[in-house]
């Protein structure tokens, strides 16, 4: 645990010593705000809630989260620092978890910085803050799921651009697995139970459920298992590819 924290702290500091953190946060806030006001017509709706704010999060994360995750391993492999890191007395799992937590915490910081939205809606009316809190938690969990997938993909390549593109594609599949286009693809050649199982994997479905204010144990378990499994695979990939 101690080592996870040391690795994570270094990783988090690395975000803030490069312009990446600031660029990411500014773009995230601008897009999140812009989409809410202009596309969501937040003020015109005349309802004191943040529903139109959260509804765009999955789409924002689709390309912003892979941007946070792409460097986690690809950069280490490109610069060779992976050899330095993995010959320190820490286990690969500790590093994988530490890196993931740093990135997740970073995403959490960006998400927290959207608090003026919450202040505004409380100033203008009397929203259900329970739903808002649940939505924030759901949004953060979803970011964690996307991040774990992105970290996994990042470990596959030395090239950050490839990591970004592949991670975005993978996140898209996971996000959209509940919608018709992905469903019909599987329906043609797999049994019905599999198609339903795929639908259950949908980030969108699980997030929407939480965003309605009900933190169902199933949704929690879903995101945490996606994270857990992705990190497990991440360790395996790092172990398998370190010599190449």
């Amino acid at each position, binding site marked *: 645990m*101690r080592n996870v924290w040391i690795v994570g702290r270094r990783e988090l*500091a*690395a975000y803030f010593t490069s312009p990446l953190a600031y660029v990411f946060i500014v773009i995230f806030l601008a897009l999140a705000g812009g989409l809410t006001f202009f596309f969501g017509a937040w003020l015109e709706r005349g309802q004191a809630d943040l529903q139109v704010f959260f509804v765009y999060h999955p789409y924002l994360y689709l390309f912003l989260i892979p941007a946070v995750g792409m460097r986690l391993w690809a950069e280490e492999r490109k*610069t060779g620092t992976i050899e330095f890191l993995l010959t320190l007395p820490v286990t690969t799992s500790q590093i994988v978890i530490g890196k993931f937590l740093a990135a997740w915490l970073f995403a959490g910081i960006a998400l927290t910085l959207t608090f003026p939205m919450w202040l505004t809606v409380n100033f203008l009316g009397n929203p259900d803050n329970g739903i808002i809190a649940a939505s924030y938690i759901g949004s953060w969990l979803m970011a964690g799921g996307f991040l774990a997938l992105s970290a996994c993909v990042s470990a596959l390549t030395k090239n950050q651009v490839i990591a970004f593109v592949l991670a975005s594609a993978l996140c898209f599949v996971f996000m959209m697995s509940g919608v018709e286009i992905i469903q019909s693809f599987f329906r043609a050649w797999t049994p019905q139970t599999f198609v339903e199982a795929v639908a259950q994997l949908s980030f969108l479905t699980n997030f929407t459920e939480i965003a309605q204010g009900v933190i169902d144990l199933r949704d929690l378990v879903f995101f945490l298992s996606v994270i857990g499994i992705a990190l497990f695979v991440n360790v395996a990939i790092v172990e398998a590819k370190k010599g190449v």
Partner: protein
Amino acid sequence: MTTLLDIRELTKRYGPITAVDNISFSVDQGEVLGFIGPNGSGKSTTMKIATGFLAPTAGTVAVAGHDVTREPLEIKRRIGYLPEGAPLYGDMTPMSLLNFVCDVRELSAADKKRGIEYAVEKLHIGNVLYQPIETLSKGYKRRVGLAQAIVHDPELLILDEPTDGLDPNQKHEVRQLLTEMSGKKVVIISTHILEEVEAVCSRAIVIAKGKLVADQDPLSLQARSRLHNAVGIRLPADQAGACSDLLRGLSGIGSVEVTTQVGAMVEMLALANAGGEILTTVRAAIDGKGIRVDEIFVERGRLEDVFRDLTCAAEGLKGPTTTARESVDA
């Protein structure tokens, strides 16, 4: 003397390529081992396995009795490692990097302070401690890499080309540091600078094509040179013909070669048969004939020649045994 590093029948294959082929050796405390071989001979791979970065295909590596595949953390704690090219986090400063390494290595506050002070002083990086590593020169980066390897006072120091990219003064300082640290540690360096082996190593291992082809102290290795015990003579050009005729007639001398000819000055080498001692014979003969010579010296042998002989043979190259030298015919 206790054995600190023990490598047994180590083999590493990448698909059809065998990078390390059945290498065995052990290193005792206090030894400074030079690992030499051509590029791609398996030096770095062996080091990567010994430090626990790569898993061996077959064979074992043990550090202080701990097996590298079963107890990797025990091994990593005891090792200070500088990977080839000294990869470091460019966005960190040397100070934050050293702090990070000390924290990961669980040094106490006092050890951390002492370790960082020692490393900073020894490697002269005090003036760049708070600059991002990516802005530093190659020499400074290399020294920061060395600093992180010694900061925890490791029992086993493994350095992959530690002086690569340093200027002659810095090289000298690093060599001094290695000699100084060698006392109760094991230091393993890989290099293709052979003078470095002569300067700091108590033992040299030559590998070629993944195979261990020699394991000796540098002096014995030098003695394998065909120039070992050869007698060099520097004399005026007008004396050269008579001298070489004289030497060629002596027993115990294999051949005579002119090595350099600058203006009126000639340098020639009398090579001994089977590397025997011929200085006394040569001197007596020259004095007897009354030949004027400016200088007589004994060659200890050239590591470079031995290196080429050993590694070219292993790589199946038609290696010229030594650099071209013309024999004196007249």
